[in-house]
């Protein structure tokens, strides 16, 4: 049962899960970070209020976040084929994962940045800083602890989504759990993969917490 092929398969599953999670998180932040910043900046109390832009971005985030991931997975198949060339496999899963995670990340970023003290923004304006300078050197820097906490949550959620992608042959630990545990009733393999997923989430959480504490200069 615990032959070298099974162990090899699990090892490969871990790597695939990490590959999907890390790249999806990266791409989702490429979209979600500016999205979240834009939500704050275009807000009516923001640096550059813009009703239309805010409403569009706000509605888009709500709509995309309310589509269940499994449905999104299927809906996005044409897009995935266009981007990756196939809709099956680990790399193909990165596309729906990114699309599902981006609006969630946009909301996390939005709430992190909203925590920045408006007085500090006012002070930067009084010194003649431009909006771009305020975004880059004030908002993102002052909110960094909260942003990292948000990233830690996001990465855990994306790992969970990636396990679901196993259903459409996405690979990774989730795929193994479904194939062996669900279809073949090999509960021990399923349990091992679930435990490994839990450990991965723990690891990400730990690294995230340590980084956040280390970067936080607000405490004495």
């Amino acid at each position, binding site marked *: 049962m615990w032959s070298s092929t099974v162990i090899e398969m699990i090892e490969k599953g871990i790597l695939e899960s990490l590959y999907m999670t890390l790249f999806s998180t990266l791409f989702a932040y490429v979209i979600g970070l500016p999205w979240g910043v834009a939500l704050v900046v275009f807000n009516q109390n923001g640096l550059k209020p813009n009703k239309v832009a805010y409403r569009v971005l706000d509605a888009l985030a709500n709509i995309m976040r309310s589509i269940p991931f499994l449905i999104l997975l299927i809906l996005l198949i044409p897009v995935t084929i266009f981007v990756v060339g196939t809709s099956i496999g680990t790399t193909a899963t990165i596309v729906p994962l990114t699309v599902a995670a981006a609006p969630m990340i946009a909301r996390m970023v939005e709430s992190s940045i909203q925590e920045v003290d408006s007085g500090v923004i*006012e002070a930067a304006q*009084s010194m003649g800083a*431009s909006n771009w300078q305020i975004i880059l050197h004030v908002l993102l820097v002052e909110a960094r602890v909260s942003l990292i906490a948000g990233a830690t949550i996001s990465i855990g959620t994306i790992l969970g989504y990636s396990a679901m992608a196993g259903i459409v042959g996405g690979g990774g630990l989730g795929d193994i759990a479904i194939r062996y545990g669900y279809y073949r009733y090999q509960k021990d393999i399923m349990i091992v993969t679930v435990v490994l997923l839990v450990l991965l989430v723990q690891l990400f959480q730990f690294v995230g917490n340590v980084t956040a504490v280390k970067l936080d*200069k607000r405490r*004495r």
Partner: protein
Amino acid sequence: MSSIVSVSNLTKVFSTKDGDFEALKGIDLDVEEGDIYGIIGMSGAGKSTLVRCFNFLERPTGGHVVVEGRDLAELSDKELREQRSRIGMIFQNFNLLMQKNVMDNVCFPLTTRGVKKSEARKRAKELLKTVGLEDKAKSYPAQLSGGQKQRVAIARALATNPRILLCDEATSALDPQTTASILELLKRINKEMGITIIVITHQMSVVREICNRVAIIESGRLVENGTVERVFTHPKSRAARKLIIGGVEELDSPDANRIIEELHEEKKIRIVFSENSSYEPVISNMIMTIGSPVNILRADTKSVNGTAKGEMILGLPSSVEAQDRIIDYLKEHNLEVEEVTGDVE
């Protein structure tokens, strides 16, 4: 001397869900170069909105703000940012960047203006020396006391060599001792660097301590302005008398309220001693000459711009003749006398 900040017919209306709110109702005000100009009023009077109009953090709804000869409304965004860097500003809550150390906080306005990092650090070091914090360059704001944070904020505000420094309730979050040391620093900055300072406060003591001119704001209107000495010795408006006689902080104590209640009951006058008359026993001489007692309701000595001013509120005997004689006597002895009416509250 020319006006460095000149405000004319300034209005600001905030549109809220419950209708429009007029925060400023036509303010005219001139600040001369080299002034330490106090703007005082109760909370909600509009003074913070007013000071934000001086650098367009708040865009006025009407009127003009002319700073260093330039009408701020006519500047482009870029020109406005450039002008703002010549107007330093400090705040009640310091508003330092909590995730940057003291050095980087002071460098911030320089690096955003495109000054080289090495040059910015050099300038920041000088400034930290000026404010007495050269050993705290690597500390983070959270490790500093309130007074130290405000010193960092002052250093940061001065980094771009501004000609004007706006102080928005800069000492309101500090204890009296720290307040005194920050005021001392502001005075020094005004004298040594020739920077015009505009101080927003609700504390009369702050105005008395450092300002040469003062404007009193009440419900969005400028009710009185002039030299601190003039306004202090001859307050014309009700708001000014309230601020001077009570002193807002003191007004809150039950003792002060009791005294003011007593003040309502009889005819009373307020006299102000200048330096010389403080040495003479004027009151006891007066009582002996006139042969009628007076009731000393309140007496105080305050320093106005470095000169000692005695202030006393006397309750007079009910006889009108005695009252007139007392007032004449005091005037003959060169004291400033005025009747205190019941509206001091």
